[in-house]
């Protein structure tokens, strides 16, 4: 028993000792004070701008492809991919942070699972089906929230990988049928990125709403007559 206490105690204290208290406090202040509102606005603006930029590149690539200038279309696809490549890790970090903060919220509003029919890429759609099933097995709202963050993160990763694969295949493929399939896939990925971004921002809003609601309950308890 003492050996267990020694190992677990020292391990936990080592982890606490290594963490940056100032950083932890700053994260909480940013999320929980009225500054959180500004943070949400800034995150939404940045995410929308980046995904919009990528979307514009893909849209122009599709136009160029229709006009028959495949090389320019592929170049624009590459530009779009670079934007996504930069955007994706930021999004994964945001989702991870959201999952961490969800542990603090006891009253997260009911979390809706991802709808498979909203996704066009088969693999992402399958992940959404899996999410729907696992959603039934986890009990608390915060666990469901964290599961959703995990599935969103995996979906972003999957979509980014497939985008890269499609762009690389387009550069090498000779047959028209293969090229069409890849272009269809890129179109599907573009749509899925938009859905995943919307779902992520909705989840961020749910988290902030839940935190504000908890604070209001505290306030109600404080002002309630005794």
């Amino acid at each position, binding site marked *: *028993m*003492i050996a267990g*206490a*020694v190992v*677990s*105690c*020292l391990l*936990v*204290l080592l*982890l*606490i*000792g290594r*963490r940056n*208290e100032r950083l*932890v*406090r700053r*994260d*909480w*202040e940013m999320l*929980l*004070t*009225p500054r*959180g*509102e500004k943070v*949400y*606005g800034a995150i*939404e603006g940045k995410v929308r701008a980046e995904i919009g930029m990528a979307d514009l590149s893909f849209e122009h690539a599709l136009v160029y492809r229709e006009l028959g200038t495949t090389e320019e279309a592929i170049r624009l696809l590459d530009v779009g991919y670079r934007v996504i490549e930069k955007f994706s890790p930021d999004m994964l970090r945001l989702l991870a942070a959201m999952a*961490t*903060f969800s*542990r*603090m*919220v*006891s*009253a997260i509003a009911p979390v809706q699972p991802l709808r498979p029919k909203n996704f066009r890429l088969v693999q992402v759609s399958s992940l959404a089906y899996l999410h729907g099933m696992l959603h039934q097995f986890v009990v608390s709202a*915060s666990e469901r929230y964290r599961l959703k963050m995990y599935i969103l993160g995996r979906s972003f990763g999957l979509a980014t990988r497939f985008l890269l694969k499609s762009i690389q295949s387009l550069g090498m493929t000779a047959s028209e049928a293969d090229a069409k399939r890849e272009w269809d896939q890129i179109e599907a990925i573009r749509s899925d990125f938009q859905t995943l971004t919307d779902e992520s921002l909705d989840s961020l*809003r749910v988290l*902030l*709403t839940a*935190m*504000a609601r*908890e*604070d*209001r*309950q*505290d*306030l109600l308890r404080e002002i309630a007559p005794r």
Partner: protein
Amino acid sequence: MSLYQQVFAWLGILQGFALFGVLLFRSHYRRMPLFTLYVGVLRVFSVVYVLDPTWETYMLHQVVSAALRFGVALELTYCIFGGFPAAASSARRVLLVILVATAVIALATLPPDATSTRMYSAAIPRMASAAIWMLTALAGLVLWYRLPLAPLPRAVLMGYAPYLLVFTIGISLLFLPGPPNLRFWAGYVDPLAFFVLTNYWLRVAWRTAPESTRPFDPRGPAGVGLRLPQEAS
């Protein structure tokens, strides 16, 4: 007690009273009254034990110390989790489980024909072990929920658990039949560890402004709740 032990004991007592004074002077007692009480009362009982080193005063010292230790653990729970209702309820559940498990193990493993000395020798390290598990659980929950820690509660959490480990191992060695040399050194390790711990607390308490020990309030300093984006418009 040998001369060295007496000198060391008096130095520890002086340092303890200095810590008590700093806690009062810096107004830390407002946020951590039980911890302040623990520091003060423990030193008074240490004086009693040094002046009258008998088995009775030793046991009294240990029982009061164990009771106040649990009080400090509960106060830490309030200090750290006070502003976070969800995490606070998890912390309360975990502490209750640890207390119940400790009581069950203590009752189950005690032989029916145990003498009072044997009983006390088993009870003291077990109470310290329970406190270690409680502090470790609190620290684990702090990590899990990524909670902010004010400097003094952090120092208490970071310093007290390792000291209790030294104390538990030392006290187990004192009561165990074994080489007398080992027991002799075990008697020195505990006061030395407590001296180092008190020194650490003293430095943190002196350097910390009283308001920084306030429990973290998620509503911010003005107690203003977060306005939602849709409400802001």
